[in-house]
């Protein structure tokens, strides 16, 4: 099954975004473009507002708008993004009372379209290598397996835009690399925003990498590593760039 047999690529633009929590202005006048069919990675110190930006694009956070402002979040086809972005979080957010298969199928269940059959969900579990665990509850699966179920659930939504908030950060190194490869392969032609703490992860997966820093926060010029993701961990150029990126992150945190 080819999950990329799907929605035409869509680019998302955030313009002049302003979000304040109480008196604290997280960002003001922040611009970012998620290029169509590309992975955009977002790095930055904790608490700088990366997750808030991701939630803003998802429509879970409301931006402040001044008179005369247009929409903060727009898509290349002119329609609103709402309902066309899938979400994957740091924790797997699997419902403990549902089996792996039913968790993958959660979106349809929630939209009241259960009778369409769940052949696709089973195929996606196959795709993430969990065909044999379809009937298992999350509690019996390992952390890596649970995050793979979450990935399958994200794919099941079949949205042109996928927003991921540190989806692999709770996993051990080897499991993380495997899952990065799997995600890069399965989400090849989607427009992806990946928020991460791990410069190497950004360099492996991102077409464009931004560092978010300051208060109110801004994004720097995008870093665009050469070659197609997922790039190899032992690529020498990648390691040089990681040094650079770490330096920029250190500056951002000071």
């Amino acid at each position, binding site marked *: 099954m080819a999950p990329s047999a799907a929605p035409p690529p869509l680019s998302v633009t955030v313009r002049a975004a302003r979000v304040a929590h109480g008196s604290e202005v997280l960002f003001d006048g922040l611009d970012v473009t998620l290029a169509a069919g590309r992975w955009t990675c977002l790095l930055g110190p904790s608490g700088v507002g990366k997750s808030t930006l991701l*939630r803003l694009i*998802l*429509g*879970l956070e409301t931006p402040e708008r001044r008179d005369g402002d247009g929409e903060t979040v727009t898509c290349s086809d002119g329609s609103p993004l709402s*309902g066309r*972005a*899938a*979400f994957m*979080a740091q*924790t797997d*957010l699997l*419902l*403990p*009372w549902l089996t792996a298969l039913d968790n993958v199928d*959660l*979106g349809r*269940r*929630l*939209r*009241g379209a259960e009778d369409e059959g769940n052949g696709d969900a089973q195929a996606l579990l196959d795709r993430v290598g969990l065909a044999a665990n379809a009937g298992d*509850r999350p*509690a019996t699966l390992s952390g890596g397996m649970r995050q793979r179920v979450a990935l399958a659930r994200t794919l099941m*939504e079949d949205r042109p835009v996928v927003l991921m908030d540190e989806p692999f950060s709770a996993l051990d190194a080897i499991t993380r690399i495997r899952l990065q490869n799997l995600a890069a392969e399965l989400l090849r032609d989607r427009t992806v925003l990946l928020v991460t703490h791990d410069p190497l992860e950004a360099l492996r997966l991102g077409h464009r990498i931004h560092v978010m820093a300051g208060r109110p926060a801004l994004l720097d010029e995008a870093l665009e590593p050469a070659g197609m993701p997922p790039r190899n961990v032992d690529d020498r150029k990648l390691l040089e760039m990681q040094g650079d990126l770490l330096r920029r992150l250190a500056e951002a945190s000071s």
Partner: protein
Amino acid sequence: MRVWRPLIILTGLIALWQAVVSLSGAPPYILPAPFEVALAWWRRADVIMEHAALTAAEILLGLALGAVFGACSALSMAYFRPARRWLLPVLVISQAVPVFALAPLLVLWFGYGIASKVAMATLIIYFPVTAAFHDGLRRTEPGWLDLARTMNASRASTLRHVRIPAALPALSSGLRVATAVAPIGAVVGEWVGSSAGLGYLMLHANARMQIDVMFAALFTLAVLAVALYFTMDTVLRRAMPWLPDSVPDTDESP
């Protein structure tokens, strides 16, 4: 060992009881010996069982009604904002008035029959069930709600597929408490005014100095309450197999 332990505890308690009777030399109309109580139970078994059946019916009906009303109140408070504003104070007031003080009124309104006792048990059960379930419904993992929103789920569908199942463990704690207090409601109702039931039998026997019969009735009530509690506990456990049990079975010595 697991099977024997309750029996050993029971034997120990009876031995202690016998020791107190023998050592203090208390007359049978103050504290009858275990054997006399057993004999009284055996002689009056038909009467005791008849009254016990009635009390059990009152408890079960009260439990069913209290659980249904409680669950409905909690659900409407979770779903309709005005319901929360209007019902919550009522709930608090209902708890501020001691239910036992209402017993004479309930008997006056609902008569000497079963209805006043069922009303009493229902009132006692209503609060723990409503409070526990409402708490559970309010404390849904926020990540699950975000996920449901990105999946375009309606409020009703989120309630049905996410918030209610997530609140079931809380509801089941409420039901456990309710099961433990339900017999109190029924028996207090019987004490205030009735012509049948274990509570009535106890008062009746007490007035005739048949203390052994009174103890036999009390013992029957205790067995009834314990059996009810363990049945409820087992049913709830079976109904929610995904819940982790933090007290592992394996720490028992074989």
